[in-house]
């Protein structure tokens, strides 16, 4: 075979003075980059195979390794970036669609970074979260427009029965990541952390392994186009059911779990034959219109006896506000919107990077549209796709979200280094892999603790920011765009976001 035209993407430097040839790196790299020698005290590296996951760097006991992005020597060209050349070389060699993992990494504007929060000064005291309670408790689900109260003398008799709600102690949920796309231990870490932190995790479209049924009260199960692992008990054990129509990383297309990954446990969970490809079609083949969606929503509601909320997840696309309005009218108790930066285990790069819109814009438009139509209370809004910090969470809530999903941030909490190679099944961090040697690297007890810590830290930060604004209950910030101001955005962007420019008062 002819030599590849691709250069290595990473440069590995081994400090000879430090390297003790212990061969830890050799054992840690699932990509077989490092090679030890039985006879000599040296280790050599084949940079071509390195994906930059930093596992070897992190575990090298003498800090002898540095793995850095290699500067390609291509002649600088404002039009032809390195990535274009690399893409063409790869495709000319393989003739295939370029695959990738994780969310869109292109330099589109990240609107969170153009939004600034408010704080109280003089006219309104800020609240110190160490002295006064600040409430983050959030309920997701349909809210009645009005409480039907009947008075018997002086005592109220409530005639309205509250629709089923999901109660969260922090407005952050772990987003859909199936067992299959991530390891058993990663899933276990998420489920245990959700239970301990008073929130939820989402099963993704891969069914629910029997070991996780006891966590049902903290799990949202997904019903996607492949219907993998969907059966009565699966629907009934969960706290809520989410119908997945689309995903931010790959709007308009389905999914594919290659047969090699369908191990015994995964075949058992998904209810498909061992080693057979698990293909989720692009559309649900029983949903070709909004009326069809309504039927599925109510079929599920029937199955779960109207006892739990049903969510519908869509990707943020151009007409998202009108689509979301249709979804609300189709009976969804929660609408989940996933933006272009939403992560994935595997997606065609061209789709991940070019289809969909940023979640901030989609959220602002959906919230406003539902309010204008007077149906905002019919559904809660959950958003996903690129939430990186507590600041992003609080800005999302101020823009109008009820709560947010985090996927990538949770995986980073578990050790992910965003190498974007989740689709290879060789995740050196034991997350996006089913290889028993690799999955062992993630201890679910440690994973749980790290995730609980992360949510706790974010909750503290959110309370500090809320207190600073003089708000002691999160519902008073929800959709309260007066507490947001935009910097460095055009007038159109400000108006789409429904936010005034920084410097403008009330």
């Amino acid at each position, binding site marked *: 075979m002819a030599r590849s035209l691709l250069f290595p993407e990473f440069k590995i430097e081994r400090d000879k003075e430090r390297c003790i040839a212990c061969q830890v790196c050799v054992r840690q790299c699932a990509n077989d980059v490092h090679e030890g020698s039985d006879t000599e005290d040296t280790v050599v590296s084949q940079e071509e195979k390195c994906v930059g996951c930093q596992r070897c760097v992190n575990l090298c006991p003498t800090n002898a390794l540095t793995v850095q992005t290699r500067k390609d020597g291509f002649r600088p060209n404002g039009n032809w970036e390195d990535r274009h050349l690399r893409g063409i070389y790869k495709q000319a060699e393989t003739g295939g669609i370029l695959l990738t993992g994780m969310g869109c990494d292109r330099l589109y504007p990240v609107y969170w970074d153009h939004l600034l929060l408010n704080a109280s000064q003089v*006219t309104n*005291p800020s609240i110190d979260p160490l002295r006064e309670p600040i409430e983050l408790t959030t309920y997701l689900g349909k809210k009645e427009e009005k*409480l039907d109260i009947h008075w018997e003398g002086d005592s109220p008799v409530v005639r309205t029965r509250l629709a089923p709600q999901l109660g969260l102690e922090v407005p952050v949920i772990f987003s859909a990541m199936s067992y299959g796309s991530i390891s058993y231990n990663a899933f276990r870490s998420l489920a245990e952390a959700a239970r301990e932190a008073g929130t939820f995790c989402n099963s993704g479209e891969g069914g629910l392994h029997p070991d996780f049924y006891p966590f049902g009260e903290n799990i949202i199960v997904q019903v996607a186009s492949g219907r993998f692992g969907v059966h009565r008990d699966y629907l009934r054990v969960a706290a809520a059911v989410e119908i997945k129509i689309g995903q931010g990383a790959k709007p308009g297309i389905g999914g594919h779990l290659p047969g090699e990954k369908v191990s015994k446990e995964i075949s058992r969970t998904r209810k498909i034959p061992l080693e057979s490809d698990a293909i989720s079609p692009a559309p649900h083949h029983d949903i070709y219109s909004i009326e069809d969606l309504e039927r599925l929503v109510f079929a599920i509601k029937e199955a779960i006896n109207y006892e739990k909320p049903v969510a519908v997840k869509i990707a943020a696309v151009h007409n998202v506000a009108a689509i979301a309005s249709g979804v609300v009218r189709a009976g969804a108790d929660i609408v989940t919107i996933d933006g272009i930066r939403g992560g994935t285990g595997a997606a065609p790069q061209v789709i991940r990077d070019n289809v969909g819109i940023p979640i901030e814009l989609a959220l602002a438009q959906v919230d406003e549209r539902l309010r204008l139509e007077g149906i905002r209370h019919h559904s809660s809004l959950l958003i996903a796709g690129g939430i990186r910090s507590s600041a992003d969470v609080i800005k999302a809530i101020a823009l109008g979200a009820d709560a947010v999903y985090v996927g990538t941030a949770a995986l980073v909490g578990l050790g992910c280094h965003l190498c974007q190679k989740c689709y290879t099944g060789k995740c050196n961090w034991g997350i996006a892999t089913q290889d028993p040697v690799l999955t062992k690297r993630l201890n679910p007890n440690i994973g749980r603790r790290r995730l609980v810590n992360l949510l706790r830290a974010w909750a503290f930060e959110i309370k500090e920011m809320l207190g600073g604004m003089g*708000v002691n209950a999160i519902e008073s910030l929800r*959709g309260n765009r007066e507490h947001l101001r935009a910097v460095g955005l055009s007038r159109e962007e400000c108006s789409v976001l429904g936010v005034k420019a920084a410097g403008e008062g*009330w």
Partner: protein
Amino acid sequence: MRDPFRIPSGCAVSGILNLDGTHVSGEKIIRSIEVMHERSNGLGGGFAAYGIYPEYAELYAFHVLYDDPLTAKDVEAILKRSCTIEHSEEIPCKETENIQNWPVFKRYFLRYRGRSDCEDDEVVRMVMEVNSGIHGAYIVSSGKNMGVFKGVGYPEDIGKLFQLEEYQGYCWIAHGRFPTNSAGWWGGAHPFGLLSWSVVHNGEISSYGINRRYLQNFGYVCNLQTDTEVITYLVDLLVRKHNIRIPYLGAVFASPFWEQIEKMEEPKKEFFTSLRTIYGGALLNGPFSIIVGFPGGMFGMVDRIKLRPMLAAWKDSTFFLSSEECAIREIAPSLDRLVALRAGEVISERVGERNSHGQKLTVSGV
């Protein structure tokens, strides 16, 4: 000129209600609010008075402020579409030492001609149409047998300008304003009035943005950008349209914490849980103390962690609410009972309801 922005302000508030229905002149309430002179800065003061138009008790009394008197014919055209103007006149004003200029104020007594069950909604619609559509005119109050008198100046001067000592009412509410920047528009002063509600408020609502959007859902247009406007509309929505009784408004506006709700007993717990879950958009967050007047009564309330002052007092058959004790002692040196409102507490009294005399109604405070 309307203020283009929301202006935070500190304030003094005071209210008197005669539980036996006795009418008194405005002289007392002026004295009461004057004591708190330091809490206002001369940029806004006003009064609401109940029971002042007994001869027109069945009619809507509209107080209209005209920055541009030429707009009167447009306003009257709107009023005449669904009402008959039984009587109208200029509201008499008398120059005082400190106020030499003032806009034109007119009052109209209107008989509604349509179906009685949508009367209030129609009045609200008319008020919104004039206040958001006609530049140069502004309806400051629209209730029955009541009226709001307000303007730019210290409240005591505003009281003298309108000669409130000439009016007789059973309930009087006053406000002195301390806006943080100059608000030169008379309509921007308080109380805020809609139908027979009048609201005075001391504080700044940090939930304003969402309260305003929440109200949009129900057709209320907030064009004044003031917290008091938002509070008034919320009171109107919850009490008039959603059948929530006044003592329970605290459960929505200054809701108890979830932890406290958790400890309540059924059925109270279910009621409070439902109120908070459904009416989250109506939760008023941030510091406030408010006095709200309504036909036959008056209530006071403070925010959920009590960041602004409010006292309630009783003497014989008079009920008082005020930002400061001195404002009550000024007009009633000895009191039967004096209490400071607790966080989230609503204290409400009505004419004729002597059984609750001196008895505070604690609802949302635990």
